[in-house]
């Protein structure tokens, strides 16, 4: 159609950049991670989101929502708060994305925001528990998957009790490292402390967990 030819270059241009932009060091960017071919780096996504590309925000969310949710779920005792923490974390992250100087550090930065939101809730509960007693919520063993063996459930229960006695500054890095499975450098970023400090806190927390397991274990 003759009249459409006027618009064709616009159409072509409008559809090209999303998927045909070349990675600086590799071939075509592929966004579909379902087949393991996800080759867009966090830094790429952050830069594109900082540039205002709305799809990059959603890609960041889809990529990291489970990490943020795991951080909230494993640290919090109240599962109903998890969605709120996830919501707030990404809302804050997207509002402050321009402040992220190292786009490659996105994971740790998101975890840090999530941890801060969780800690806010702990502070609030401290206030409300003055009126309502101890905080309710799910224990770690309540979060066990259907495949978990009885031994694993028993261990989770013991660990849970050990964690409940720990101060937050020890509990948070231990949960991020040994429950969520975060690398040490990201745990340090999330806890806003140095790598040396996080190692020290992990060692201290682990000693308490082991002591508890030794006391109460079979």
């Amino acid at each position, binding site marked *: *159609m003759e009249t459409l030819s006027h618009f*064709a270059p616009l159409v072509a241009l409008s559809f090209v*950049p999303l998927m045909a932009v070349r990675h600086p060091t590799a071939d075509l*960017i592929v966004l579909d991670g379902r087949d393991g071919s996800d080759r867009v780096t966090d830094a790429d996504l952050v830069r594109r989101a900082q540039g*205002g*590309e709305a799809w990059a925000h959603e890609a960041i*969310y889809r990529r990291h*929502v489970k990490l943020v949710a795991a951080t909230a779920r494993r640290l919090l005792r109240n599962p109903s708060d998890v969605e709120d923490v*996830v919501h707030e974390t990404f809302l804050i992250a997207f509002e402050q994305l321009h402040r992220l100087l190292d786009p490659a550090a996105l994971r740790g930065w998101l975890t840090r925001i999530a941890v801060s939101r969780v800690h806010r809730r702990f502070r609030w509960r401290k206030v409300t528990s003055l009126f309502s007693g101890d905080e309710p919520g799910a224990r770690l063993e309540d979060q066990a998957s259907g495949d978990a063996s009885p031994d694993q459930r028993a261990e989770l229960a013991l660990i849970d009790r050990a964690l409940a006695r720990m101060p937050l500054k020890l509990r948070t890095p231990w949960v991020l490292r040994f429950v969520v*499975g975060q690398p040490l450098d990201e745990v340090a970023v999330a806890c806003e402390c140095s790598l040396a400090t996080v190692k020290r806190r992990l060692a201290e927390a682990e000693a308490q967990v082991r002591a508890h397991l030794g006391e109460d274990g079979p």
Partner: protein
Amino acid sequence: MSAPHDPTLPERAPLDGVLEAPIDEERIAATWQRVVEARAGRPRPRRVWMPVAALAAAAALVVGYVALDRDGARPAAGPLASRDGASLAIGAEVASTGVTRELSFDDGSQVTLAPEARLEVLANDGAHFVSLLDRASARFSVRPGGPRRWSIETALATVEVVGTVFTVDPQADRLVVTVEKGLVVVRGERVPGRVVSLGAGERLEVLADAPRAADAPAPAPAPSTDAVATAPAPAPSPEVPVAVPGAIVPPSSETPAAAAGTPPRRAEPARAPAPRDDAARVRDDARALAGDDAGPAGADAPALAPEAALREADALRQAGDARAAAAVLERAIAAGGDDAAVGLAAFTLGRIALDALDQPERAARAFARVIELGTPAGLLEDAYARRADALLRAGRTADARAAIDAYARAYPQARRLAALRARLPADP
């Protein structure tokens, strides 16, 4: 462990493997919607320190609701409900076994499930109704201008609805989307360019073994016919080339769907009105919409409501009378009505005027009306781009320049800006 060489570090396998998933897909989708809505200026996230304020707000809402209801005003929409009692709670499945099943909804929309089709509800609130369709086809009749945006997920693509009648047929090796009335947007990795909009009488087939948009070569800069089958489909309009079975319509091909140039990602919320310098021109163009350029067909006929006009225009267009279709829409727009339906009618008029009638002035006025109304939000960026395109084609260089500037202010990252600016004559 990342540092096994450090003897001071404790060793322990992460426990996440024996714990249940921290969040399920349904909540992931719902939470993303909350993020999108909050970023669009809707309610801020719930703060743990604001329970009293929340209670006060809830009380105010109740009072407001009662007051509005007493005055006969329509209350805010809640989740979509079925008129036949079928559950539409998130996670609910509605299936038809052996026979066709009709579903009617409280917003006036209808869905006809083919035998063995299954519809699973993924999200359902006052603003969205998202469902997953598999096993067989379903025909959707979504009330235009309704309070919710409908999305139908399938294995191969997502179909988003502006207000329309269409059929989604997920087959083993392909997805077939056929639009009877209105407009739908189809998105997916295997949809050429990742997104295609379809108008009345158009049909799209997405093949399961088609290369994903990511793997496909970039669309050619000019229309070509090598990858497009153009044989007629049932009841085609002379102005509306239709994709045929077995073919995928690339966005750069000669189809109105391609020309629609819909935004490459999920529809964005309505933007602020056009800035001052262009706003007056938008208003003038929009006000002139029912002026002297109206088509001759049925000039004295009474105006239909926008929804009825869209149906009538679709029928006329499919019968090959684009001029009469434009006239019907123009009268409906001038008569006014629900903003969303008027906006959709104006956008459709703009497409017809620009693509079928070669009347860029008329198209510019129609797209100006869409911009002025700010709805449908999912077509707003396209309306800005098409208005600028129409003004360029009409030779109104100064107005086109202002329209492009307005487009840039509303959508600074829009990919069509560079191509539009390239068509402007150089400053003297």
